[in-house]
């Protein structure tokens, strides 16, 4: 029947039917549809084929296939690599963030990123993302604003299911600004915000987990270390030496 009649718009008609056109293209196709003697019946035919296929059987993988695929994935060491989808604007973002720091710094941060490339770097990414988000807000995101660690520590107990160490580092020039709860790799993280002059340091704390980290990511210095039962991340725009000093003070303070 309609197979013998063709309209130059038929593939666009179909694309509209499949939801592949944007609003403007769709509108102009609709206008065409009003006046075309071929496309009207053709659309009905598309709709008929779709309702027919809606009754097609759906095949689910048999349980034994599922079990054997899971077994394969778990037993093969090649499946251990974890992937982070990289967005295409990544290089551009790095260039923007690194800014005047020059090509060497850019290359170094790229190299760090690509060399690490595993779950640890994903965690670092996540921590740095949270730091960036916090920096964008004027008050540097804190859910509880207090310079008093006796206030901040109990606040966390109502928010998360572990009690992070909250340290008073005022004597070393790091003023506690407050705390917030971030999500890092799908798990809650207690974040303490310290001020060192004009710089902010985010200290992100989670129950201990294995891993390693790049020392620098997207122009930020990153330190990862264990503290008792916790894994602690410190992220800041402080320079490497200053951030190392902060970590030293943190570790030596109860």
């Amino acid at each position, binding site marked *: 029947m309609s197979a013998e009649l063709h309209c130059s718009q038929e593939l666009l008609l179909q*694309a509209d039917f499949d939801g*592949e056109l944007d609003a403007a293209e769709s509108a102009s196709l609709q206008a065409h549809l009003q006046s075309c003697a071929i496309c009207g019946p053709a659309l009905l035919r598309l709709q008929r084929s779709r309702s027919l*296929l809606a009754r097609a059987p759906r095949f689910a993988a048999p349980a034994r296939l599922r079990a054997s695929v899971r077994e394969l994935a778990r037993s093969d060491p090649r499946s251990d690599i974890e992937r982070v989808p990289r967005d295409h604007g990544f290089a551009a973002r790095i260039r923007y963030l690194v800014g005047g720091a020059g090509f060497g710094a850019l290359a170094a941060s790229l190299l760090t990123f690509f060399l690490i490339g595993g779950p640890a770097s994903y965690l670092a990414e996540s921590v740095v993302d949270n730091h960036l988000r916090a920096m964008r807000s004027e008050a540097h995101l804190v859910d509880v604003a207090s310079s008093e660690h006796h206030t901040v520590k109990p606040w966390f107990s109502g928010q998360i299911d572990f009690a992070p160490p909250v340290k008073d580092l005022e004597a070393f020039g790091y003023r506690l600004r407050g705390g917030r709860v971030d999500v890092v790799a799908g798990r809650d993280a207690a974040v303490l915000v310290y001020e060192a002059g004009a710089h902010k340091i985010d200290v992100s704390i989670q129950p201990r987990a294995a891993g390693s980290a790049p020392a620098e990511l997207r122009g930020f210095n990153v330190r990862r270390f264990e503290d008792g039962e916790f894994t602690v991340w410190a992220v800041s725009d402080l320079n490497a030496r200053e951030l190392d000093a902060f970590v030293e003070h943190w570790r030596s303070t109860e």
Partner: protein
Amino acid sequence: MLESAPLLERHIEEKTLPGVTSFEVIATTHLDAAYSLARWLTRDSVLAEDVVQDAMVRALTYFAGFRGENPRAWLLQIVRNVALGKLGARVEPVSLDSPEASSGESLADTLTDGADGPDTTLEREQDHRQVNELLNRLPVELRECLVLREIEDCSYKEIARIIDAPIGTVMSRLWRARQMLGDLVDEQEKSA
């Protein structure tokens, strides 16, 4: 009409899975889709299982080079290639620009399985088996496009990636698949 393809491509973004994705997560999340595609391509439940097994082993080999974008399309592409390999199917380009080729050829010529006669009556009992049989009469290069679009709900861009063909080819094959399916239904209704 094919010049619309680049226009379309602009608007279709690949789906990206946020966060960490391990092979096990990819494999188990998209296992049903993988099996379903294998089943539709091979039309055989045992062969489909073999295809998925082999495809998963091959996917593991490629996993180190996988960039993490659209894992479902990535996996389905591998499943599709393994399935066609097992079928020994020749993957030849289908003529895009000659409508006569599709409308002119007898439907009997396009039946890939002579064992199934066109005597099923869709109106009386439109059950799974009958739709299945109808769909299975489409040549594999048309059937795969239709299955990916209507059953796996893939975008044109995803289908293009999975079958390794330009979007224009996807559009044209989808069109032909739907016309042919319509013709098959018409034929059944006439003979009923």
